[in-house]
């Protein structure tokens, strides 16, 4: 008897498991988020929305660096995300068929700029920016002054180099160094292969007089040597010797927070992490020895672009669009989101409290040019950057013109190969 009972119980368990996936709700929101640091805030906002409207909002955050994998498997499920991120041209290429055309929607009409939107080759509005960010070199002005320099004195590569080299030479006496560590492992290498290299792409765009709207087949690498100058300055004048960077293991953020270094190559999303320890932290552009760079601003752009699942049910799509609209118009929600995201480029969203984004605005007000994120067009981005990192590691171990030639190949020829491959 006992056995029979057990058998029936087993059967029931199996049947319940099979049936669990069958229920279907009407009009819910499922946001697949790709920024782990925002997870907590998003969940809070989701709960606020559910309390207010009764519409269920599910937030799932992909683990750092696994967004593409998570998106692939989630989209294949019977209840796929209704709201997800298509952040760059590579993403548009892969996911455009799954994105609803957002042109003319209520949320698109709330946008204050078209600068952060992504279109596919047929002109469909695939995704819209929900926040933008900026990156450059974060500075601790207090330490800089302790070392005898003023922030206003640093206006180009020459002045940055003079200050950094002097601070590094006197590091023992001062008790702090010029740059924080510049690890080349996967948790940190993107600061160079994804961000700093943008200076080459951007100045190429600028020289050609046009902004990229799709991945170019080739790049010239005309400013790769400027990248080298700045990169060398960072790794030669830092808390960690350049030979020890390949496998990482250093904590640049902590070095900056604890006053171990003046400069920190990073972006605006670090503001909330460092502002408590260094309240007057600010950001300067990538000065790299290009003519007229005294007028340079920060690198502004985004990979945070909302896309709505075209294959979701009509009710889910409507619910999602309503939720998005609420996020950028509700004072309380947009305040929470802005605190986490930095800036939301929508007419009725609250203003930013992020010091680095404020610095960016100040540069713009002073008539400086904004460096856009041309880096978002990197073809086959993972492979491209991986080859770039590998070449930089070899260069760091033996910094000569020969090893630099391999870095240049990775940047320039690597672009052409990967662009051809991505076109398939």
């Amino acid at each position: 008897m006992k056995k029979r009972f057990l058998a029936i119980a087993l059967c029931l368990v199996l049947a319940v498991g099979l049936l669990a996936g069958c229920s279907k709700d009407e009009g819910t929101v499922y946001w697949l988020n790709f920024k782990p640091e925002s997870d907590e805030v998003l969940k809070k906002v989701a709960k606020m929305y559910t309390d207010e409207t009764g519409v269920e909002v599910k937030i799932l955050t992909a683990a750092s660096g696994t967004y593409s994998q998570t998106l692939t498997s989630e989209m294949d499920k019977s209840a796929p995300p209704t709201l997800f991120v298509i952040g760059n041209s590579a993403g548009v290429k892969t996911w455009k068929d799954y994105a609803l055309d957002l042109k003319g929607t209520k949320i698109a009409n709330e946008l204050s700029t078209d600068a952060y939107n992504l279109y596919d080759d047929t002109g469909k509005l695939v995704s819209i920016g929900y926040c933008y960010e900026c990156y450059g070199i974060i500075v601790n002005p207090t330490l800089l002054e302790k070392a005898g320099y003023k922030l206003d004195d640093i206006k180009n590569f020459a002045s940055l180099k003079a200050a950094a080299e002097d601070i590094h030479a006197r590091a023992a006496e001062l008790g702090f160094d010029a740059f924080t560590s510049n690890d080349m492992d996967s948790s940190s290498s993107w600061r160079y292969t994804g961000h700093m290299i943008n200076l080459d792409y951007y100045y190429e765009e600028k020289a050609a007089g046009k902004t990229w709207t799709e991945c170019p087949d080739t790049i010239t690498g005309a400013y790769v040597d400027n990248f080298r100058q700045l990169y060398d300055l960072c790794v030669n004048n830092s808390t960690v010797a350049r030979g020890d960077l390949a496998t990482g293991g250093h904590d640049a953020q902590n070095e900056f927070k604890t006053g171990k270094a003046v400069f920190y190559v990073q972006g605006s999303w670090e503001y909330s992490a460092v502002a408590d320890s260094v309240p007057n932290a600010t950001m300067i552009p990538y000065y790299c020895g290009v003519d007229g760079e005294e007028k340079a601003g920060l690198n502004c752009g985004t990979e945070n672009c909302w896309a709505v699942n075209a294959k979701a049910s009509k009710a889910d799509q409507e619910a999602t669009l309503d939720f998005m609209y609420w996020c950028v118009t509700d004072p309380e929600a947009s305040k929470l989101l802005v605190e986490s995201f930095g800036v939301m480029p929508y007419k009725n969203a609250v203003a930013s409290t992020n010091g680095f984004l404020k610095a960016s605005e100040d540069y713009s007000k002073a008539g400086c040019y904004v460096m856009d994120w041309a880096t978002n067009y990197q073809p086959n981005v993972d492979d491209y950057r991986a080859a770039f990192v590998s070449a930089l590691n070899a260069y760091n171990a033996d910094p000569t013109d020969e090893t630099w030639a391999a870095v240049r190949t990775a940047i320039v020829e690597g672009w052409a190969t990967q662009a051809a491959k991505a076109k398939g």
Partner: protein
Amino acid sequence: MNKKRRRAMARWGWLFLGPVTVAFIIGFIWPFLQGIYLSLCKFVLTRDAEFVGFSNYLDAFRDQSFMHSFWYTGLFAIVSLVLINILAFTVAYFLTQKIKGANLFRTVFFMPNLIGGIVLGYIWSMIFDGILSHWGTSILLDTKFGFWGLIILMLWQQIGYMMIIYIAGLQAVPEDMIEAARIDGASRTQTLFKVTIPNVMPSITICTFLSLTNGFKLFDQNLALNGGGQPFIQNADGSVIKTTEMMALNIYNTFYGQNSTSRGLGQAKAVIFFVLVAGLGIAQLAFTRKKEVQQ
């Protein structure tokens, strides 16, 4: 077994086999067949696959990086197979002699096996770099370092596990046979090779099978220790071969590539990989089984 009981089994047997069969079909047979079908398709999501025939297979064989990973993986599997088994057997052999603290040693040797591959990879990359930095280099800068680094890691992780299997085998060798050999005047070496080893052939079969397939399927240690396959060789045209990338990692990297055909290509590589590993595994089992003796 009486008749009544047999009838009860016939009546209720399906109930016990049923869930397992269903689970096996859902969890293995169906995905496997679907995987084969997808290798013939172009797709972003599996439910929107578009049939394209064998082009993915042709692309896989034309892919230089895949061919490189194939030879590299083969070499790795052979070297690790030989070293792991020789060392594990040696350790097991000594630990079955009457050594003080043998149990403690067994536990200690087995422990690395309990640590996850990614963690191991990162820890060992720091250990190797700590040493290599004295010469101004890193495990990520030289394929040779990458290869032997991974071998050392795998030895450290796997020897303890194989050792346990060998110890079980060694303890099952009949004492009287060894005694008979000794009385017949066999030396220690002769006893080892003529009596002990033929008697532990079942353990050798299992251990070689495990270490061979482990060698081929290696993924997380490779990902973490070798920084995703560094160093890379840059061809003149800018294309890249990741010199320490093994097959499983190559498949993974291909699958999540940006090209719209990359998922099908990754899937085709995975099917080739399956055929290869299954074929080698079966061949190896057949070979070592032949050497097993009846006690």
